[in-house]
């Protein structure tokens, strides 16, 4: 059954190749604090989905619990969403994805939601290489419960609550690379220029694509002592290199010079052009990617951009060799063995 494309209710608004305008990717009004980094990420998601472009209703939004996990209400109002329980988004995403491999899965979570209560599910959704984009809106604190340190808070960094955090911080990107995620990137809510293409590239990756997006909490963790504040991130940010993401449908207009640009073709045929300069690390080698992250950390720099990329990665459906038809479309005919088969089973049990 086909349906009419959305009518152009805002004739002045530009539309993408699917005929949707940007507002078709918006959600309800945010109830987050004014200036919260999460809102910028929501905007980047809207922009990325508009630009790729995806059909809004083909996206499934999922989240856990937290300020960050509320955001799916603020983008993609035409998509189904699932705001689950704290730290358990990955399992919901796994089930949803198993039920219908044809939709696009976009999960968002917080650093508390992922690095503390959700650590087990996070690691295991990576391990099973679920075909989804997993975004952590990382503010180094528990926003919704009023600012406690999270496990990604840097050692010694100070939130509004005061005392410097005495515990080592967990680098989710490094963890993800080590555990074999095929696409790992880091962005900054304040850098839309980089974030939108990062999101687009992540969403085109088959298998798990993990994005750690530093997202300052203006209410509880934007102090001068915080390493997750706007100021700190702006002062310490460093990119692995710039890149262009060219979706499959799009014509490649620019010619890149050999040697300075590495083209990585994704499963779906889209291409990521990694532009290299003298210092650009190779982001398609796992061991190097991990080491570079560590090296930059030692220098006190926060590395962003695509941190690791393995276009060869698989996904859970391939690993399990499930049917190419979405499982939720199968009916009695395909699923039920019927009474004759049951008779035979009875026979064998007599």
């Amino acid at each position: 059954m086909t349906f009419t494309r959305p009518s152009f209710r805002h004739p002045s608004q530009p539309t993408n190749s699917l005929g949707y305008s940007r507002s078709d990717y918006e959600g309800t009004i945010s109830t987050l604090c004014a200036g919260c980094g999460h809102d910028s990420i929501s905007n980047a998601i809207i922009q990325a989905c508009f630009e790729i472009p995806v059909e809004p209703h083909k996206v499934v939004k999922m989240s856990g619990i937290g300020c960050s996990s509320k955001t799916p209400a603020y983008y993609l109002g035409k998509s189904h969403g699932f705001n689950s329980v704290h730290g358990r988004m990955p399992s919901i995403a796994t089930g949803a994805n198993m039920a219908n491999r044809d939709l696009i899965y976009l999960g968002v979570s917080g650093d508390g939601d992922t690095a503390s209560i959700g650590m087990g599910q996070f690691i295991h959704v990576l391990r099973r290489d679920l075909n989804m984009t997993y975004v952590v809106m990382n503010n180094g604190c528990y926003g919704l419960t009023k600012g406690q340190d999270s496990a990604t808070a840097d050692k010694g960094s100070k939130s509004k609550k005061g005392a410097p955090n005495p515990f080592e911080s967990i680098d989710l990107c490094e963890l993800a690379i080590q555990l074999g995620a095929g696409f790992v990137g880091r962005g900054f809510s304040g850098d839309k220029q980089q974030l939108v293409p990062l999101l687009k590239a992540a969403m085109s990756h088959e298998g798990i694509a993990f994005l750690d997006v530093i997202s300052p909490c203006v209410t509880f963790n934007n102090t001068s002592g915080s390493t997750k504040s706007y100021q700190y991130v702006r002062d310490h940010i460093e990119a692995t290199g710039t890149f262009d993401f060219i979706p499959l449908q799009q014509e490649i207009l620019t010619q890149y010079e050999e040697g300075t640009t590495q083209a990585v073709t994704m499963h779906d045929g889209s291409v990521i052009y990694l532009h290299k300069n003298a210092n650009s690390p190779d982001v398609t080698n796992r061991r190097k990617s991990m080491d570079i992250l560590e090296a930059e950390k030692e220098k006190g720099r926060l590395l962003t951009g695509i941190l690791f990329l393995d276009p060869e990665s698989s996904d859970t459906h391939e690993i399990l060799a499930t049917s190419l038809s979405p499982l939720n479309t199968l009916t009695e005919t395909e699923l039920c063995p019927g009474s004759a088969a049951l008779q035979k089973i009875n026979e064998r049990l007599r």
Partner: protein
Amino acid sequence: MNRIERTNDFVVRFANVNGTGSASANNLFAQAIFKMGVPVSPKNIFPSNIQGLPTWYEVRINEQGYLGRRGGVDLTVAVNGQTLIQDYNEVLPGGYFLYDSTKKLPEVCRRDDMTEIGIPLTELCNAAFSDPRLRQLLKNIIYIGALSFLLDIDFSILNDAIRNQFLKKPKLAEPNLQALEIGFTYARDNFPETCGLSVHKSNATGDAILMDGNSALGLGAVYAGATVVGWYPITPSTSVIEAFERYANLFRTELESGRKRFAIIQAEDELAAIGIAIGAAWNGARAFTATSGPGVSLMSEFLGLAYYAEIPVVLMDVQRTGPSTGMPTRTQQSDLLATAYASHGDTKNVLLFPCDPKECFDLAADAFDLAERLQAPVIIMSDLDLGMNDHISAPLVWDDTRRYDRGKVLDAAALESMPEKWGRYLDVDGDGICYRTYPGTHPNKGAYFTRGTSHNEYSAYTEDSGLYARGMQRLLRKWETAKTLMPAPHEKTCNPDAPFGALFFGTTSHAAYEAVDALAEEGFEINTLRLLAFPLRQEVIDFINRHGQVFVIEQNRDAQMRMLLINEGRFVPEKLHSVLHFDGMPITADTIRRQIKALLPQLSIPHGQKECLPGVTP
């Protein structure tokens, strides 16, 4: 000595060491009896370890078809040195004790009220076979051979069974057949006329099948069209998933591509397992998980989400002995409260109680229909006894005209043609059940944001007290609807005027029916109701109201079903009398009979009904 002499009605117990291959030999024994048309009920009593500890296999043979545990052993086959003395002492007076006489019985074993049958199993085995691995296995086959003679078990059935078992490796069949023969011959030559127990061909089993409950649950889920499974290994539920996988591989592999029409995810824990099932169910696949005690506790938060966000997930709880890790390889019916009212806040879940493999199969299939119809979690309450033991059962039946009831789901066309704005939690029909949509259905209609937070009829977040309360009240309305959809209880009326009723469910049923029959023979008439589901259908309420006194028989310490009954049915607690058993072993008819008889004298019988009860002084 009063030798026990019985045909088609006795109990044999095998005492083995686990991990020594005894399971398949003992299974062969039970199968053979079953194939002779005699009802048989084997119970595997195994330790929570992998190798080297005592394990028992208790087989009740009963032509009348009483399938509960009987208690007491008429013939023990003792091949475990660790428990030899205990096994020796536990044989009933007049019974038989078959042991490996390669080693002499210890001094303390000196009973003269039963018959010792010493067969030098090890010696015979070592003499015939040289491969040490094979020796361990074949020793077990030798005693089966001996039993064949001692109990008159049709030797050809055993022969055929072994041939069948090794159909693909006929070479391996040979030594097994030889071992059978050795045992048979030795017993014939040395113990003629020794054993008063015997099995005679019968057709008491009719067209019954012999199957374990977990296989039936797994198969039921295949027939029900379940496609997504999240699970985490835990005894005794693991084999539900193994069965699902086995049957699904068989029936759901695409011919050309070899691809699977199902996805089984071994999750990292039980929280993820049910999360996976919930995510899939939300996205329009039939999905389930299976677990046992500790897993139920871990799933409780997610069960609350599924209740409140109204997601049709199926959970199979194969209960074991709690609390905590408890006795992982023993049975109990003690997760009723943990499931019925799972999670914090006000929650209520549908429970289904199968009592045999056919019901496992049927209720598994029904569970998915009910869950989708009710948009709610449905929990099948099996237990270790039902799940991991073979049970005689009516054959499985599937009606090919049966269609899955996917419940109130709007497709794109329905959304397109809706005049009003659709609301995920709008109670359009007044039955408390609303219409849902699957993701991706329609480009601009029917999307909503599912949440465990308080929501209005359109699934938008709200903190409005009134909206919240209205939603909670609607869930109660749905609960009322659920009552009407539950499978009906099974009632047996012994005497319509009898003042006594007995209510039970699940694996307690077999022993309960037997106890009630026995009591009837003693002159105590008791009508019975076998409960199949929670919440309670009107018939259940009527049954209890109709009887002056009702025995509630269950396998837990705290009378959990009685609590559910009182709370949901609002009965006078005084009239519900608990018959409890909770030591981890399946309940026996005798336990029930004795407890009821102990209760009877204290019960005041409503006026005018006393005459039904000979010999009872209220």
